[in-house]
């Protein structure tokens, strides 16, 4: 159990390049914080600074209020799961998990070690593999062993360095769920580095978005999604990503290459300092085939005609692509943004989400409806989000915090209930799982 405080952390390499530049983050006790960003943004470096594998050039790092800048990794009592697992190949799974315990000489008796290792193995379903060597395990099993080594000792916090990036997609989803449940059950402070935004959105209580060593925004996933502070965060979070369309303000409408869009009331008051040309941030799901929109909803947005170049049907949904003529004034800025986001370039196209049963096909022209209530307007030069509502954003993060507390509470109650039951009746694991589900749903009600 620990709170981790980073104050103005800086990491400069010998050549003067600041990999991490003035980052301050408070990680609350029991919180699951995600560090996310494109490659080279300094997220892994920051994690290594926290665990002690990288020196801190300046700034303060404290764990539970104690400054640990100059402490060795072994004295910080953190455990870490490496991207490549870093299992000890000459040791069996059992010994791999027991390794941290054996290092703290004299602290644990042989029985204690055995009990703890078996407990961890139980949690991670590794019981059948304890005597095997890492070389004979599958990717998912190795991942579990690495996790076992992290949870076996009572570390103050878990650090994960892209732990799932080496697994195939299916296994990744499964392990993601397991990590989430494990963290909730143990209620232990966790720092998790990833470049995968699905992981960021699903696992994190809060997500810190980094760009070139600088913190862009730290907030709950919902706040990041709905109230991004700037172009970078808006473009990074969400898949398919937000559409950025150049627009000129013309009375009460935005004049854009795809058609005129009425300026919603919410936005109007915030355009006083706006430059002549702005970027509209429109998420694909704010669009819809006009035929599928409820009559009553239509007035909340704008309907316009669009020519589709092609559509993609995915079963549960459909994406349509609309090309337009890019405005030379913003081309440069958009290219820069694409580079920052690790993309090859930002094509002049709008991705819209359509109902799966929509008959719009490539080459056709159709009416589409845009729900403009939640649009964002960005200043193309500074990248700043002109329409961000900080209060609404903070409210979203506060809600997320509360939900997390309740969730941990529920998980604990469930655990203790299971322990009681196991104590009285000695239920089988399967029985426990059933009970587990029942308690969870009743608590949710």
């Amino acid at each position, binding site marked *: 159990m620990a709170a981790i405080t980073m104050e103005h952390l800086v990491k400069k390499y010998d050549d003067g390049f600041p990999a991490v530049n003035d980052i301050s983050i408070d990680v609350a006790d029991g919180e699951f914080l995600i560090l996310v960003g494109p490659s080279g943004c300094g997220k892994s470096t920051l994690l290594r600074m926290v*665990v*002690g*594998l990288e020196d801190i050039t300046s700034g303060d790092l404290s764990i539970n209020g104690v400054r640990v800048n100059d402490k*060795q*990794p*072994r004295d910080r009592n*953190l*455990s*870490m799961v*490496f*991207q*490549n*697992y*870093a*299992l*000890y*190949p*000459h040791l069996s799974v059992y010994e791999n998990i027991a*390794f*941290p315990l054996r*290092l*703290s000489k004299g602290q644990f008796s042989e029985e204690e070690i055995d009990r703890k290792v078996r407990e961890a193995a139980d949690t991670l379903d590794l019981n059948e593999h304890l005597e095997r*060597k*890492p*070389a*004979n*395990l599958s*990717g998912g099993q*190795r991942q579990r062993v690495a996790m076992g*080594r992290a949870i076996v*000792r009572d570390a103050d916090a878990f650090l994960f360095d892209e732990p799932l990036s*080496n697994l195939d997609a299916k296994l990744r989803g499964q392990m993601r769920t397991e990590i989430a449940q494990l963290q909730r059950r143990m209620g232990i402070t966790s720092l998790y580095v990833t470049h995968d935004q699905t992981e960021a959105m699903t696992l994190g209580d809060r997500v810190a978005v980094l760009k070139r060593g600088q913190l862009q925004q730290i907030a709950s996933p919902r706040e990041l999604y709905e109230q991004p502070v700037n172009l970078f965060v808006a473009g990074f979070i969400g898949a398919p990503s937000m559409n950025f369309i150049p627009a000129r303000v013309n009375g009460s409408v935005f004049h854009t290459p795809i058609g005129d869009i009425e300026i919603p009331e919410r936005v109007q008051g915030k355009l006083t300092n706006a430059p002549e040309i702005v970027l509209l941030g429109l998420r694909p799901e704010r669009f819809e085939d006009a035929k599928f929109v409820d009559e009553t909803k239509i007035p909340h947005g704008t309907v316009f005609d669009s020519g589709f170049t092609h559509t993609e049907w995915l079963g549960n949904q459909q994406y349509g692509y609309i090309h337009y003529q890019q405005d030379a004034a913003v081309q440069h800025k958009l290219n820069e943004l694409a580079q920052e986001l690790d993309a090859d370039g930002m094509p002049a196209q709008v991705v819209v989400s359509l109902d799966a049963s929509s008959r719009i096909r490539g080459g056709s022209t159709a009416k589409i409806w845009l729900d403009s209530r939640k649009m964002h307007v960005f200043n193309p030069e500074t990248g700043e989000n002109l329409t961000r509502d900080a209060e609404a954003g903070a409210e979203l993060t506060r809600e997320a915090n509360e939900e997390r507390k309740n969730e941990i509470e529920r998980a604990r109650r469930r655990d203790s209930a299971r322990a009681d039951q196991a104590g009285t009746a000695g239920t089988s694991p399967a029985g426990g799982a059933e009970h587990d589900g029942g308690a969870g749903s009743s608590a949710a009600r």
Partner: protein
Amino acid sequence: MLSTKQKIGWTVISIAVLVYALFPVLSILMTSFKSSSDLNSGKFIPTKFVTSNYEQIFVGEAKDLFLPALWNSIGISLISTFVAVVLATLCAYAIARLDFPGKKIVLTTALMVSMFPVVSIVTPLFNLWRQVGLYDTWLGLIIPYLSLTLPISIWTLAAFFQQIPWDLDRAAQVDGATTWQAFRKVIVPLTLPGVFTTAIIAFFIAWNDFVYGIGLTSTAAARPVPAALAFFTGASQFEAPAGAISAAAIIVTIPVVLLVLAFQRQIVSGLTQGAVKG
């Protein structure tokens, strides 16, 4: 898969190489079983297999020359191998893992030392050793042998250490290990194949040395086998000692073969498999 033609080709080449490499050994083996009158017979296989040559070096008149030399060779080679490997392991670990000033100098110096011609050093060393009292002692040979075995050990081991993923050190440190514990419990076990390979190479270098052996010794106190062989004489001055020398040569080959066989199991590749992904 190889085609039949390729298979035949490879077989022919392999046999040619084997014959080229093993024929001299076989020839020496045959000579060692020849009686002295048989030496100049011009035949490959002895007309009669005799063990008199072996008797001569183990219990006969060459005994006092050969047995102490064998003992010296084994002792000196083992000690210099051991010292070289221990020092080289520490040195190579530092070179592979740490960033310290003078790292390049250590490596280039090691390379230069190993390239320095032995013959040019042996005479000055002979004078120096006589004055400091190291002449004709074990230590007097171990030190120059270290100058031969250390550089190559450092270079070989550094290459092995560099193959071990850094994250293993880091993981061990996060798990609570000191640098020394990480080295001893994680890195050394993983480098064992490299350590054994290096040990064998170092042992060969020390075992095969002739120049230092003959230049820095004068008696059975420290003279190693390669030097001792030069002092073998026939039963009379008209008799060549080729038989006894061959027998001794066969005997000194045995430890080397045993060493390789013993360590062969340790030199398994792919020991680090499964440590990291990709």
